[in-house]
Protein backbone atom coordinates (compact mmCIF):
# COMPACT_ATOMS: atom_id res chain seq x y z
CA UNK A 1 0.00 0.00 0.00
CA UNK A 2 1.19 3.42 -0.67
CA UNK A 3 1.64 5.37 2.45
CA UNK A 4 0.00 8.74 2.03
CA UNK A 5 2.84 11.21 1.69
CA UNK A 6 0.58 13.66 3.45
CA UNK A 7 1.01 11.96 6.79
CA UNK A 8 4.61 10.93 6.66
CA UNK A 9 7.29 12.89 4.98
CA UNK A 10 10.85 11.56 5.15
CA UNK A 11 9.55 8.90 7.47
CA UNK A 12 8.62 11.34 10.15
CA UNK A 13 5.23 12.10 11.54
CA UNK A 14 4.32 15.73 11.21
CA UNK A 15 2.54 17.35 14.12
CA UNK A 16 -1.09 17.70 13.11
CA UNK A 17 -1.58 21.11 14.65
CA UNK A 18 -5.23 22.00 14.32
CA UNK A 19 -5.55 19.58 11.44
CA UNK A 20 -3.27 21.58 9.17
CA UNK A 21 -2.04 19.72 6.12
CA UNK A 22 1.74 19.26 5.80
CA UNK A 23 1.81 21.55 2.78
CA UNK A 24 0.21 24.29 4.87
CA UNK A 25 2.50 23.56 7.76
CA UNK A 26 5.51 23.96 5.49
CA UNK A 27 4.15 27.21 4.08
CA UNK A 28 3.53 28.47 7.60
CA UNK A 29 7.12 27.72 8.62
CA UNK A 30 8.40 29.20 5.40
CA UNK A 31 6.45 32.36 6.13
CA UNK A 32 8.14 32.61 9.51
CA UNK A 33 11.61 32.38 8.06
CA UNK A 34 13.01 35.81 7.37
CA UNK A 35 15.59 34.44 4.99
CA UNK A 36 12.95 32.62 2.94
CA UNK A 37 10.75 35.71 2.74
CA UNK A 38 13.55 38.05 1.71
CA UNK A 39 15.00 35.53 -0.72
CA UNK A 40 11.62 34.61 -2.16
CA UNK A 41 10.60 38.24 -2.69
CA UNK A 42 13.92 39.11 -4.30
CA UNK A 43 13.80 36.06 -6.54
CA UNK A 44 10.23 36.82 -7.56
CA UNK A 45 11.21 40.38 -8.47
CA UNK A 46 14.22 39.22 -10.51
CA UNK A 47 12.24 36.47 -12.23
CA UNK A 48 9.42 38.85 -13.15
CA UNK A 49 11.83 41.48 -14.44
CA UNK A 50 13.59 38.90 -16.57
CA UNK A 51 10.40 37.32 -17.89
CA UNK A 52 8.95 40.73 -18.72
CA UNK A 53 12.19 41.84 -20.38
CA UNK A 54 10.51 42.51 -23.76
CA UNK A 55 8.10 44.91 -22.08
CA UNK A 56 10.45 46.39 -19.48
CA UNK A 57 13.74 46.89 -21.28
CA UNK A 58 14.01 50.49 -22.42
CA UNK A 59 16.32 49.80 -25.41
CA UNK A 60 17.14 47.11 -27.92
CA UNK A 61 19.70 44.87 -26.18
CA UNK A 62 21.69 43.96 -29.31
CA UNK A 63 21.51 46.92 -31.65
CA UNK A 64 24.63 49.08 -31.42
CA UNK A 65 24.34 52.82 -30.89
CA UNK A 66 27.62 54.41 -31.89
CA UNK A 67 26.64 57.83 -30.57
CA UNK A 68 26.90 56.84 -26.92
CA UNK A 69 29.65 54.29 -26.27
CA UNK A 70 30.65 53.71 -22.63
CA UNK A 71 28.27 56.33 -21.21
CA UNK A 72 28.25 56.32 -17.41
CA UNK A 73 24.97 55.65 -15.59
CA UNK A 74 22.53 58.50 -16.19
CA UNK A 75 18.81 59.16 -16.37
CA UNK A 76 18.75 57.96 -19.97
CA UNK A 77 20.77 54.82 -19.23
CA UNK A 78 20.32 53.84 -15.59
CA UNK A 79 23.25 51.41 -15.68
CA UNK A 80 25.22 53.14 -18.42
CA UNK A 81 26.13 51.77 -21.83
CA UNK A 82 28.76 49.35 -23.11
CA UNK A 83 31.37 49.90 -25.80
CA UNK A 84 28.81 49.63 -28.57
CA UNK A 85 26.52 52.11 -26.84
CA UNK A 86 24.04 49.40 -25.90
CA UNK A 87 21.97 49.98 -22.77
CA UNK A 88 23.32 47.74 -19.99
CA UNK A 89 20.04 47.55 -18.08
CA UNK A 90 18.27 46.20 -21.18
CA UNK A 91 21.04 43.70 -21.77
CA UNK A 92 20.87 42.53 -18.14
CA UNK A 93 17.11 42.02 -18.37
CA UNK A 94 17.45 39.98 -21.57
CA UNK A 95 20.63 38.26 -20.45
CA UNK A 96 18.96 37.03 -17.28
CA UNK A 97 16.61 34.91 -19.35
CA UNK A 98 19.57 32.85 -20.56
CA UNK A 99 21.58 32.84 -17.35
CA UNK A 100 18.64 31.80 -15.22
CA UNK A 101 17.30 29.24 -17.64
CA UNK A 102 20.73 27.62 -17.83
CA UNK A 103 20.50 27.21 -14.05
CA UNK A 104 16.98 25.80 -14.10
CA UNK A 105 17.42 23.44 -17.07
CA UNK A 106 20.81 22.20 -15.86
CA UNK A 107 19.33 21.34 -12.47
CA UNK A 108 16.41 19.66 -14.23
CA UNK A 109 18.83 17.47 -16.16
CA UNK A 110 20.93 16.75 -13.07
CA UNK A 111 17.98 16.04 -10.77
CA UNK A 112 16.07 13.79 -13.18
CA UNK A 113 19.02 11.63 -14.18
CA UNK A 114 20.61 11.73 -10.73
CA UNK A 115 17.45 10.70 -8.91
CA UNK A 116 16.69 7.84 -11.31
CA UNK A 117 20.27 6.58 -11.03
CA UNK A 118 20.21 6.90 -7.24
CA UNK A 119 16.85 5.15 -6.87
CA UNK A 120 17.89 2.28 -9.13
CA UNK A 121 21.29 2.03 -7.48
CA UNK A 122 19.89 1.92 -3.96
CA UNK A 123 16.91 -0.30 -4.76
CA UNK A 124 18.64 -3.03 -6.75
CA UNK A 125 21.95 -2.90 -4.89
CA UNK A 126 24.68 -5.40 -5.77
CA UNK A 127 26.29 -5.05 -9.16
CA UNK A 128 23.97 -2.28 -10.35
CA UNK A 129 24.87 -0.26 -7.28
CA UNK A 130 28.60 -0.84 -7.75
CA UNK A 131 28.53 0.18 -11.41
CA UNK A 132 26.48 3.33 -10.82
CA UNK A 133 28.48 4.42 -7.80
CA UNK A 134 31.76 3.90 -9.66
CA UNK A 135 30.42 6.16 -12.41
CA UNK A 136 29.53 8.76 -9.80
CA UNK A 137 33.03 8.48 -8.32
CA UNK A 138 34.39 9.07 -11.79
CA UNK A 139 32.33 12.25 -12.21
CA UNK A 140 33.56 13.40 -8.80
CA UNK A 141 37.18 12.90 -9.87
CA UNK A 142 36.99 16.05 -11.97
CA UNK A 143 37.26 18.98 -9.56
CA UNK A 144 34.68 21.76 -9.66
CA UNK A 145 34.06 23.44 -12.94
CA UNK A 146 36.60 21.25 -14.78
CA UNK A 147 34.10 18.56 -15.83
CA UNK A 148 31.68 21.09 -17.30
CA UNK A 149 34.64 22.76 -18.97
CA UNK A 150 35.81 19.51 -20.55
CA UNK A 151 32.29 18.64 -21.74
CA UNK A 152 31.76 22.04 -23.36
CA UNK A 153 35.23 21.83 -24.90
CA UNK A 154 34.32 18.48 -26.41
CA UNK A 155 30.75 19.10 -27.54
CA UNK A 156 31.19 22.74 -28.55
CA UNK A 157 30.00 25.93 -26.89
CA UNK A 158 26.28 26.19 -27.59
CA UNK A 159 23.37 26.89 -25.24
CA UNK A 160 22.08 23.27 -25.08
CA UNK A 161 25.61 21.92 -24.59
CA UNK A 162 26.18 24.42 -21.81
CA UNK A 163 23.03 23.22 -20.05
CA UNK A 164 24.04 19.58 -20.52
CA UNK A 165 27.58 20.22 -19.28
CA UNK A 166 26.50 22.07 -16.15
CA UNK A 167 23.78 19.44 -15.58
CA UNK A 168 26.09 16.44 -15.85
CA UNK A 169 28.61 17.94 -13.46
CA UNK A 170 25.86 18.33 -10.82
CA UNK A 171 24.52 14.75 -11.05
CA UNK A 172 26.50 13.13 -8.17
CA UNK A 173 24.72 15.01 -5.35
CA UNK A 174 21.29 13.84 -6.51
CA UNK A 175 22.44 10.24 -6.90
CA UNK A 176 23.74 10.26 -3.34
CA UNK A 177 20.63 11.77 -1.77
CA UNK A 178 18.26 9.48 -3.69
CA UNK A 179 20.34 6.39 -3.02
CA UNK A 180 20.68 7.19 0.67
CA UNK A 181 16.94 7.62 1.07
CA UNK A 182 16.16 4.37 -0.73
CA UNK A 183 18.62 2.47 1.44
CA UNK A 184 16.95 3.77 4.57
CA UNK A 185 13.44 3.08 3.27
CA UNK A 186 13.54 -0.13 1.32
CA UNK A 187 13.20 -2.43 4.33
CA UNK A 188 10.37 -0.36 5.84
CA UNK A 189 6.91 -1.85 6.29
CA UNK A 190 5.14 0.15 3.60
CA UNK A 191 7.65 -0.95 0.99
CA UNK A 192 7.47 -4.56 2.11
CA UNK A 193 3.68 -4.32 2.08
CA UNK A 194 3.71 -2.95 -1.46
CA UNK A 195 5.90 -5.85 -2.49
CA UNK A 196 3.61 -8.40 -0.81
CA UNK A 197 0.59 -6.95 -2.61
CA UNK A 198 2.48 -7.58 -5.82
CA UNK A 199 3.51 -4.12 -6.99
CA UNK A 200 6.21 -4.09 -9.64
CA UNK A 201 9.65 -2.73 -8.82
CA UNK A 202 8.90 0.25 -10.99
CA UNK A 203 5.73 1.06 -9.06
CA UNK A 204 7.47 0.66 -5.72
CA UNK A 205 10.38 2.88 -6.76
CA UNK A 206 8.42 5.67 -8.36
CA UNK A 207 5.08 5.64 -6.50
CA UNK A 208 6.13 4.59 -3.02
CA UNK A 209 9.75 5.58 -2.50
CA UNK A 210 10.12 8.64 -4.72
CA UNK A 211 7.52 10.78 -2.85
CA UNK A 212 9.64 10.43 0.27
CA UNK A 213 12.56 12.14 -1.39
CA UNK A 214 10.64 15.30 -2.23
CA UNK A 215 11.77 17.24 0.82
CA UNK A 216 15.54 16.88 0.54
CA UNK A 217 15.28 17.04 -3.23
CA UNK A 218 13.46 20.37 -3.20
CA UNK A 219 16.15 21.86 -1.00
CA UNK A 220 18.98 20.39 -3.04
CA UNK A 221 17.48 21.49 -6.36
CA UNK A 222 16.85 25.03 -5.11
CA UNK A 223 20.40 25.49 -3.88
CA UNK A 224 21.57 23.65 -7.00
CA UNK A 225 20.02 26.27 -9.29
CA UNK A 226 22.13 28.92 -7.59
CA UNK A 227 25.29 26.88 -8.09
CA UNK A 228 24.36 26.11 -11.71
CA UNK A 229 23.83 29.80 -12.49
CA UNK A 230 27.34 30.47 -11.21
CA UNK A 231 28.89 27.59 -13.19
CA UNK A 232 27.00 28.51 -16.35
CA UNK A 233 27.94 32.16 -16.21
CA UNK A 234 31.54 31.24 -15.29
CA UNK A 235 31.79 29.21 -18.50
CA UNK A 236 30.33 32.07 -20.52
CA UNK A 237 32.72 34.42 -18.74
CA UNK A 238 35.62 32.25 -19.92
CA UNK A 239 34.31 32.40 -23.48
CA UNK A 240 33.12 28.79 -23.43
CA UNK A 241 29.40 29.33 -23.10
CA UNK A 242 27.01 31.79 -24.65
CA UNK A 243 28.87 34.04 -27.05
CA UNK A 244 28.36 37.76 -27.63
CA UNK A 245 26.49 39.64 -29.01
CA UNK A 246 23.76 37.54 -27.34
CA UNK A 247 23.55 39.10 -23.88
CA UNK A 248 24.20 36.78 -20.95
CA UNK A 249 25.39 37.82 -17.50
CA UNK A 250 28.68 35.91 -17.69
CA UNK A 251 29.73 37.14 -21.11
CA UNK A 252 28.66 40.71 -20.26
CA UNK A 253 30.96 40.57 -17.26
CA UNK A 254 33.78 39.31 -19.49
CA UNK A 255 33.24 42.22 -21.86
CA UNK A 256 33.19 44.63 -18.95
CA UNK A 257 36.48 43.28 -17.66
CA UNK A 258 38.27 44.92 -20.58
CA UNK A 259 36.95 48.34 -19.60
CA UNK A 260 37.16 47.93 -15.84
CA UNK A 261 39.63 50.75 -15.34
CA UNK A 262 37.69 53.43 -17.20
CA UNK A 263 34.10 52.21 -17.30
CA UNK A 264 33.40 50.22 -14.12
CA UNK A 265 29.65 50.02 -14.77
CA UNK A 266 30.03 47.68 -17.74
CA UNK A 267 31.19 44.86 -15.46
CA UNK A 268 29.71 46.00 -12.16
CA UNK A 269 26.00 45.65 -12.94
CA UNK A 270 25.99 42.25 -14.70
CA UNK A 271 28.03 40.87 -11.80
CA UNK A 272 25.61 42.40 -9.32
CA UNK A 273 22.74 40.72 -11.20
CA UNK A 274 24.39 37.31 -10.91
CA UNK A 275 25.12 37.87 -7.24
CA UNK A 276 21.61 39.02 -6.36
CA UNK A 277 19.99 36.16 -8.28
CA UNK A 278 22.25 33.61 -6.59
CA UNK A 279 21.82 35.25 -3.18
CA UNK A 280 18.02 35.24 -3.45
CA UNK A 281 17.98 31.56 -4.37
CA UNK A 282 20.40 30.68 -1.58
CA UNK A 283 18.29 32.56 0.98
CA UNK A 284 15.14 30.84 -0.23
CA UNK A 285 16.94 27.47 -0.20
CA UNK A 286 18.12 27.99 3.38
CA UNK A 287 14.59 28.87 4.44
CA UNK A 288 13.16 25.87 2.63
CA UNK A 289 15.67 23.59 4.30
CA UNK A 290 14.70 24.81 7.73
CA UNK A 291 11.00 24.50 6.92
CA UNK A 292 11.15 21.11 5.25
CA UNK A 293 13.77 19.32 7.22
CA UNK A 294 15.94 20.98 9.84
CA UNK A 295 18.17 17.90 9.90
CA UNK A 296 19.56 18.90 6.50
CA UNK A 297 21.30 21.88 8.03
CA UNK A 298 25.02 21.86 7.14
Amino acid at each position, binding site marked *: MREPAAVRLRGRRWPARGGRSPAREILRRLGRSR*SALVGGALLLAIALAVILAPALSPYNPIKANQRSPLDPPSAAHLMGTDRFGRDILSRILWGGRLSMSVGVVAVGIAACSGVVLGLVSGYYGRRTDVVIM*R*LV*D*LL*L*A*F*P*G*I*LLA*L*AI*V*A*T*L*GATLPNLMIAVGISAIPEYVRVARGTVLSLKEREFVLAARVVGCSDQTIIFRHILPNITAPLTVLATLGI*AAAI*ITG*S*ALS*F*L*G*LGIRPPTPEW*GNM*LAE*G*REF*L*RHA*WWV*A*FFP*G*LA*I*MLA*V*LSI*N*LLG*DGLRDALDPRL*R*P
Partner: protein
Amino acid sequence: MLRYIIQRLLQLIPILIGISVLTFLMLHLIPGDPVLIFAGDKPMTEERAAEIRHQLGLDRPLWVQYGDYAAHAVRGDLGRGLRSQRPVLDSILEVAPGTTQLTLAALALATILGMTLGILAALARGTWLDTAAMTFAILGVSMPVFYSSLLMILLFSFTLGWLPATGQGGVARLVMPATALGMISAAVLARLVRSGMLAVLRQEYVVTARAKGLAPRVVVLRHALKNALIPTITMLGLQLGALLGGAVVTETIFSRPGVGRLAVDAILSRDFPLVQGTVLFTAVAYVLVNLLVDISYAAIDPRVRYQ
Protein backbone atom coordinates in the same frame (compact mmCIF):
# COMPACT_ATOMS: atom_id res chain seq x y z
CA MET B 1 46.09 1.22 8.90
CA LEU B 2 48.29 -0.35 6.22
CA ARG B 3 45.35 -2.47 5.14
CA TYR B 4 43.23 0.64 4.79
CA ILE B 5 45.87 2.35 2.65
CA ILE B 6 46.23 -0.68 0.38
CA GLN B 7 42.46 -0.94 0.07
CA ARG B 8 42.22 2.72 -0.89
CA LEU B 9 45.04 2.38 -3.41
CA LEU B 10 43.25 -0.54 -5.06
CA GLN B 11 40.04 1.49 -5.26
CA LEU B 12 42.01 4.11 -7.09
CA ILE B 13 42.77 1.86 -10.07
CA PRO B 14 39.29 1.80 -11.67
CA ILE B 15 38.99 5.55 -11.13
CA LEU B 16 42.30 6.24 -12.84
CA ILE B 17 41.33 3.96 -15.73
CA GLY B 18 37.97 5.72 -15.96
CA ILE B 19 39.58 9.16 -16.02
CA SER B 20 41.99 8.10 -18.76
CA VAL B 21 39.19 6.54 -20.85
CA LEU B 22 37.11 9.71 -20.59
CA THR B 23 39.95 12.05 -21.49
CA PHE B 24 40.95 9.71 -24.32
CA LEU B 25 37.41 9.69 -25.68
CA MET B 26 37.23 13.50 -25.53
CA LEU B 27 39.20 13.73 -28.74
CA HIS B 28 36.95 11.23 -30.50
CA LEU B 29 33.69 12.76 -29.32
CA ILE B 30 34.51 16.15 -30.79
CA PRO B 31 32.27 16.72 -33.77
CA GLY B 32 34.39 16.45 -36.90
CA ASP B 33 37.40 14.48 -37.98
CA PRO B 34 40.31 14.32 -35.47
CA VAL B 35 42.66 14.55 -38.43
CA LEU B 36 41.41 18.03 -39.16
CA ILE B 37 41.99 19.02 -35.55
CA PHE B 38 45.57 17.74 -35.61
CA ALA B 39 46.19 19.46 -38.92
CA GLY B 40 44.92 22.73 -37.49
CA ASP B 41 41.52 22.80 -39.24
CA LYS B 42 43.09 23.39 -42.64
CA PRO B 43 41.28 21.98 -45.66
CA MET B 44 43.12 19.10 -47.36
CA THR B 45 42.73 16.36 -49.92
CA GLU B 46 41.28 12.99 -48.98
CA GLU B 47 44.62 11.25 -49.69
CA ARG B 48 46.52 13.65 -47.45
CA ALA B 49 43.94 13.13 -44.69
CA ALA B 50 44.30 9.36 -44.97
CA GLU B 51 48.06 9.72 -44.79
CA ILE B 52 47.92 11.81 -41.63
CA ARG B 53 45.33 9.47 -40.18
CA HIS B 54 47.73 6.60 -40.71
CA GLN B 55 50.70 8.54 -39.34
CA LEU B 56 48.83 9.39 -36.15
CA GLY B 57 47.50 5.86 -35.84
CA LEU B 58 43.90 7.09 -36.00
CA ASP B 59 42.99 4.31 -38.45
CA ARG B 60 43.51 1.63 -35.81
CA PRO B 61 40.68 0.18 -33.70
CA LEU B 62 39.66 2.48 -30.86
CA TRP B 63 40.78 0.13 -28.09
CA VAL B 64 44.25 -0.21 -29.63
CA GLN B 65 44.47 3.57 -29.74
CA TYR B 66 43.41 3.75 -26.09
CA GLY B 67 46.02 1.15 -25.10
CA ASP B 68 48.64 3.20 -26.85
CA TYR B 69 47.43 6.43 -25.20
CA ALA B 70 47.33 4.86 -21.72
CA ALA B 71 50.75 3.24 -22.13
CA HIS B 72 52.25 6.58 -23.05
CA ALA B 73 50.36 8.48 -20.37
CA VAL B 74 51.60 6.13 -17.63
CA ARG B 75 55.15 6.99 -18.68
CA GLY B 76 54.36 10.69 -18.53
CA ASP B 77 54.08 11.12 -22.29
CA LEU B 78 50.90 13.11 -22.90
CA GLY B 79 51.73 14.00 -26.49
CA ARG B 80 52.73 17.36 -27.90
CA GLY B 81 50.79 20.61 -28.01
CA LEU B 82 49.53 21.43 -31.49
CA ARG B 83 50.51 25.08 -31.27
CA SER B 84 53.75 24.97 -29.29
CA GLN B 85 54.89 21.49 -30.41
CA ARG B 86 56.24 21.10 -26.87
CA PRO B 87 55.57 17.98 -24.80
CA VAL B 88 52.24 18.58 -23.01
CA LEU B 89 53.60 17.44 -19.66
CA ASP B 90 56.41 20.01 -19.83
CA SER B 91 53.92 22.81 -20.47
CA ILE B 92 51.83 21.64 -17.52
CA LEU B 93 54.70 21.13 -15.07
CA GLU B 94 56.03 24.56 -15.91
CA VAL B 95 52.90 26.28 -14.62
CA ALA B 96 51.74 23.75 -12.00
CA PRO B 97 53.63 25.39 -9.09
CA GLY B 98 51.61 28.58 -9.65
CA THR B 99 48.33 26.70 -9.30
CA THR B 100 49.60 24.82 -6.24
CA GLN B 101 50.65 28.08 -4.60
CA LEU B 102 47.31 29.76 -5.33
CA THR B 103 45.23 26.79 -4.18
CA LEU B 104 47.19 26.29 -0.96
CA ALA B 105 47.09 29.99 -0.10
CA ALA B 106 43.33 30.05 -0.70
CA LEU B 107 42.87 26.91 1.37
CA ALA B 108 44.88 28.33 4.26
CA LEU B 109 42.89 31.54 4.17
CA ALA B 110 39.60 29.66 3.96
CA THR B 111 40.50 27.43 6.90
CA ILE B 112 41.67 30.22 9.19
CA LEU B 113 38.89 32.67 8.33
CA GLY B 114 36.14 30.05 8.11
CA MET B 115 36.96 28.36 11.38
CA THR B 116 37.41 31.60 13.30
CA LEU B 117 34.11 32.99 12.07
CA GLY B 118 32.31 29.70 12.63
CA ILE B 119 33.54 29.31 16.20
CA LEU B 120 32.87 32.94 17.11
CA ALA B 121 29.38 32.79 15.61
CA ALA B 122 28.55 29.62 17.51
CA LEU B 123 29.84 30.99 20.83
CA ALA B 124 28.08 34.31 20.34
CA ARG B 125 24.90 32.74 19.04
CA GLY B 126 22.10 35.23 18.50
CA THR B 127 24.27 38.32 18.96
CA TRP B 128 25.31 40.87 16.33
CA LEU B 129 28.57 38.97 15.86
CA ASP B 130 26.67 35.85 14.85
CA THR B 131 24.49 37.83 12.46
CA ALA B 132 27.50 39.57 10.95
CA ALA B 133 29.43 36.32 10.49
CA MET B 134 26.47 34.56 8.92
CA THR B 135 25.71 37.51 6.66
CA PHE B 136 29.29 37.34 5.46
CA ALA B 137 28.84 33.61 4.95
CA ILE B 138 25.70 33.83 2.82
CA LEU B 139 27.18 36.68 0.79
CA GLY B 140 30.40 34.73 0.36
CA VAL B 141 28.57 31.64 -0.84
CA SER B 142 26.57 33.71 -3.32
CA MET B 143 29.47 35.73 -4.69
CA PRO B 144 30.89 34.23 -7.88
CA VAL B 145 34.69 34.23 -7.80
CA PHE B 146 34.87 36.10 -11.10
CA TYR B 147 32.81 38.96 -9.68
CA SER B 148 34.65 39.28 -6.38
CA SER B 149 37.95 39.20 -8.31
CA LEU B 150 36.86 42.06 -10.57
CA LEU B 151 35.57 44.11 -7.65
CA MET B 152 38.86 43.63 -5.82
CA ILE B 153 40.87 44.66 -8.88
CA LEU B 154 38.63 47.69 -9.27
CA LEU B 155 39.08 48.74 -5.66
CA PHE B 156 42.62 47.74 -4.71
CA SER B 157 44.39 48.09 -8.05
CA PHE B 158 42.59 50.76 -10.04
CA THR B 159 41.14 52.99 -7.32
CA LEU B 160 43.56 52.70 -4.42
CA GLY B 161 46.58 51.47 -6.37
CA TRP B 162 47.70 49.19 -3.55
CA LEU B 163 48.13 45.90 -5.37
CA PRO B 164 49.11 44.87 -8.91
CA ALA B 165 46.12 43.61 -10.89
CA THR B 166 47.79 40.84 -12.85
CA GLY B 167 50.73 38.50 -13.04
CA GLN B 168 52.56 36.16 -10.74
CA GLY B 169 55.38 36.45 -8.24
CA GLY B 170 55.61 37.77 -4.71
CA VAL B 171 53.00 38.05 -2.01
CA ALA B 172 51.51 41.23 -3.51
CA ARG B 173 50.36 39.35 -6.58
CA LEU B 174 49.03 36.45 -4.56
CA VAL B 175 46.87 38.34 -2.04
CA MET B 176 43.91 39.20 -4.27
CA PRO B 177 43.57 35.94 -6.22
CA ALA B 178 43.95 33.86 -3.07
CA THR B 179 41.42 35.99 -1.16
CA ALA B 180 38.87 35.94 -3.99
CA LEU B 181 39.25 32.21 -4.38
CA GLY B 182 39.37 31.38 -0.69
CA MET B 183 36.42 33.55 0.33
CA ILE B 184 33.80 31.12 -0.97
CA SER B 185 35.33 28.18 0.87
CA ALA B 186 35.70 30.33 3.99
CA ALA B 187 31.97 31.06 3.83
CA VAL B 188 31.08 27.39 3.38
CA LEU B 189 33.34 26.40 6.26
CA ALA B 190 32.05 29.15 8.57
CA ARG B 191 28.50 27.84 8.20
CA LEU B 192 29.59 24.25 8.72
CA VAL B 193 31.79 24.96 11.74
CA ARG B 194 29.07 27.06 13.35
CA SER B 195 26.41 24.37 13.11
CA GLY B 196 28.94 21.68 14.07
CA MET B 197 29.94 23.64 17.16
CA LEU B 198 26.33 24.32 18.12
CA ALA B 199 25.55 20.62 17.88
CA VAL B 200 28.57 19.63 19.93
CA LEU B 201 28.06 22.31 22.59
CA ARG B 202 24.73 20.68 23.42
CA GLN B 203 26.33 17.27 23.98
CA GLU B 204 26.36 15.84 27.46
CA TYR B 205 30.12 15.61 27.77
CA VAL B 206 30.44 19.33 27.12
CA VAL B 207 27.81 20.03 29.74
CA THR B 208 29.73 17.73 32.10
CA ALA B 209 33.00 19.49 31.36
CA ARG B 210 31.36 22.80 32.13
CA ALA B 211 29.67 21.49 35.24
CA LYS B 212 32.92 20.26 36.73
CA GLY B 213 34.22 23.78 36.47
CA LEU B 214 36.69 23.68 33.58
CA ALA B 215 37.66 27.02 32.10
CA PRO B 216 35.38 27.94 29.18
CA ARG B 217 38.41 28.19 26.90
CA VAL B 218 39.41 24.61 27.69
CA VAL B 219 35.87 23.36 27.14
CA VAL B 220 35.61 25.08 23.79
CA LEU B 221 39.04 24.25 22.43
CA ARG B 222 39.68 20.81 23.91
CA HIS B 223 36.27 19.26 24.23
CA ALA B 224 34.03 20.87 21.68
CA LEU B 225 36.21 22.00 18.81
CA LYS B 226 38.02 18.70 18.37
CA ASN B 227 34.78 16.89 17.71
CA ALA B 228 33.21 19.65 15.69
CA LEU B 229 36.21 19.48 13.38
CA ILE B 230 35.55 16.00 12.04
CA PRO B 231 32.94 17.00 9.44
CA THR B 232 35.04 20.07 8.74
CA ILE B 233 38.01 17.98 7.64
CA THR B 234 35.84 16.06 5.18
CA MET B 235 34.59 19.38 3.87
CA LEU B 236 38.16 20.61 3.45
CA GLY B 237 38.82 17.74 1.04
CA LEU B 238 35.73 18.68 -0.97
CA GLN B 239 36.65 22.35 -0.89
CA LEU B 240 40.03 21.53 -2.36
CA GLY B 241 38.21 20.34 -5.47
CA ALA B 242 36.17 23.53 -5.60
CA LEU B 243 39.38 25.55 -5.23
CA LEU B 244 41.18 23.66 -8.00
CA GLY B 245 38.17 24.27 -10.25
CA GLY B 246 37.90 27.89 -9.15
CA ALA B 247 41.58 28.37 -9.94
CA VAL B 248 40.63 28.02 -13.62
CA VAL B 249 38.58 31.22 -13.39
CA THR B 250 40.86 33.06 -10.96
CA GLU B 251 44.01 32.44 -12.98
CA THR B 252 42.31 33.69 -16.11
CA ILE B 253 41.10 36.91 -14.47
CA PHE B 254 44.39 37.75 -12.81
CA SER B 255 46.40 36.59 -15.84
CA ARG B 256 48.38 34.23 -13.63
CA PRO B 257 50.20 31.36 -15.28
CA GLY B 258 48.65 28.11 -14.06
CA VAL B 259 47.13 24.81 -15.09
CA GLY B 260 43.62 26.25 -15.16
CA ARG B 261 44.51 29.10 -17.45
CA LEU B 262 46.53 26.72 -19.61
CA ALA B 263 43.41 24.56 -20.00
CA VAL B 264 41.19 27.52 -20.92
CA ASP B 265 43.72 28.84 -23.44
CA ALA B 266 44.06 25.35 -24.90
CA ILE B 267 40.29 25.02 -25.32
CA LEU B 268 39.98 28.46 -26.90
CA SER B 269 42.79 27.71 -29.37
CA ARG B 270 41.47 24.19 -30.05
CA ASP B 271 44.75 22.61 -28.94
CA PHE B 272 43.15 19.31 -27.98
CA PRO B 273 46.19 17.27 -26.89
CA LEU B 274 46.88 20.08 -24.42
CA VAL B 275 43.21 20.13 -23.30
CA GLN B 276 43.34 16.37 -22.82
CA GLY B 277 46.59 16.64 -20.89
CA THR B 278 45.49 19.40 -18.53
CA VAL B 279 42.18 17.69 -17.76
CA LEU B 280 43.90 14.35 -17.15
CA PHE B 281 46.62 15.95 -15.03
CA THR B 282 44.20 17.93 -12.86
CA ALA B 283 41.84 15.00 -12.29
CA VAL B 284 44.68 12.62 -11.36
CA ALA B 285 46.25 15.22 -9.07
CA TYR B 286 42.90 15.83 -7.39
CA VAL B 287 42.24 12.12 -6.88
CA LEU B 288 45.70 11.61 -5.38
CA VAL B 289 45.37 14.60 -3.05
CA ASN B 290 41.99 13.33 -1.94
CA LEU B 291 43.56 9.97 -1.17
CA LEU B 292 46.09 11.70 1.07
CA VAL B 293 43.30 13.62 2.79
CA ASP B 294 41.38 10.38 3.40
CA ILE B 295 44.43 8.61 4.75
CA SER B 296 45.29 11.41 7.15
CA TYR B 297 41.63 11.50 8.14
CA ALA B 298 41.74 7.78 8.93
CA ALA B 299 44.89 8.38 10.95
CA ILE B 300 43.09 11.01 13.06
CA ASP B 301 39.78 9.20 13.44
CA PRO B 302 40.14 5.42 13.82
CA ARG B 303 36.41 4.90 13.23
CA VAL B 304 36.87 5.66 9.55
CA ARG B 305 39.09 2.65 9.02
CA TYR B 306 36.46 0.18 10.14
CA GLN B 307 33.54 1.46 8.15
